[in-house]
């Protein structure tokens, strides 16, 4: 099982994402350069957080045209497992791999805190390792542009299709995301994006290891294929 973590100019969570993936038993993880048309034969792609190409114009708008994104989009279309975290989520939305868009936080400020996420579904390739009986994950957020938006009819469709995997726990919506959505998949369920940072919640030292369940789920899903 080999994870690939994309690195854009401005990415800052690439090492944390790689190191989080390496904590999964038997997993390898490599960095993928934004300028290369090469996924190095990885089994799953992580588009990590931070920034990309200055986030000029709109967050993620320029990064979607990076050379490596051609391969990431092809990989996703063929059913490959792709995880987008924070800026990665924004990029995948801009690329059309995920529904909706991320808008500036209602409160206008950069926010950085631990949040509880309700798990809507634990039967997906991104959440299957959430222990039975555990209904929420404690994972940090850190962003300025994290307000999930999609038109009402599209939100209805997302919910009907079971594409919402994670929501901010009641009363904890930090950014004005519609329907408290913290993470959504594409229609096929093989691409997932979320604003919280699971790679920052993998060691008891920082208060929670709940983030690791996402990486473990992805590895298990790849092994099952």
């Amino acid at each position, binding site marked *: 099982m080999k994870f690939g973590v994309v690195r854009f100019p401005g990415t800052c969570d690439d090492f944390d994402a790689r190191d989080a993936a390496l904590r999964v038993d038997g997993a390898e993880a490599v960095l993928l350069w934004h300028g290369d048309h090469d996924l190095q034969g990885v089994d799953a792609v992580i588009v990590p957080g931070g920034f990309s190409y200055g986030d000029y*114009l709109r967050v993620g708008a320029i990064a979607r045209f990076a050379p490596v994104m051609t391969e990431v989009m092809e990989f996703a279309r063929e059913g490959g497992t792709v995880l987008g975290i924070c800026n990665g989520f924004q990029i995948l939305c801009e690329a059309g791999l995920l529904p909706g868009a991320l*808008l*500036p*936080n209602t409160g206008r400020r950069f926010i950085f805190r631990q949040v509880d996420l309700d798990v809507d579904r634990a039967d997906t390739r991104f959440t299957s390792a959430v222990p039975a009986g555990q209904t929420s994950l404690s994972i940090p957020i850190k962003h300025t542009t994290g307000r999930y938006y999609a038109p009402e009819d599209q939100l209805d469709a997302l919910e009907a299709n079971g594409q919402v995997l994670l929501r901010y726990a009641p009363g904890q919506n930090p950014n004005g995301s519609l329907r408290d959505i913290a993470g959504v998949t594409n229609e096929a369920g093989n691409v997932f994006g979320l604003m919280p940072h699971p790679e920052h919640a993998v060691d008891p030292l920082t208060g929670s290891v709940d983030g690791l369940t996402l990486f473990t789920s992805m590895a298990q899903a790849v092994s099952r294929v």
Partner: protein
Amino acid sequence: MKARVLIRPKAGILDPQGVAVEQALPALGFTGVSEVRVGRMVELEIADESQLDQLCQKLLANTLIEDYEIVSVEGAVAP
């Protein structure tokens, strides 16, 4: 030729920047200002004017959340 494209948040979508500007105005003595919306304007030189619309849809605006308007081409206000 020169073109100007005006991009703004779609109606109905909360615009925190507009809210911030609106809230700052009373402190300067400007009262009675409301519905402030902050967008952006892109100026560009374009060889083939017929590409302008596609270019707006594919990059300059995210049409899920933004409306765009080509406000002038070569100095003339678009019809």
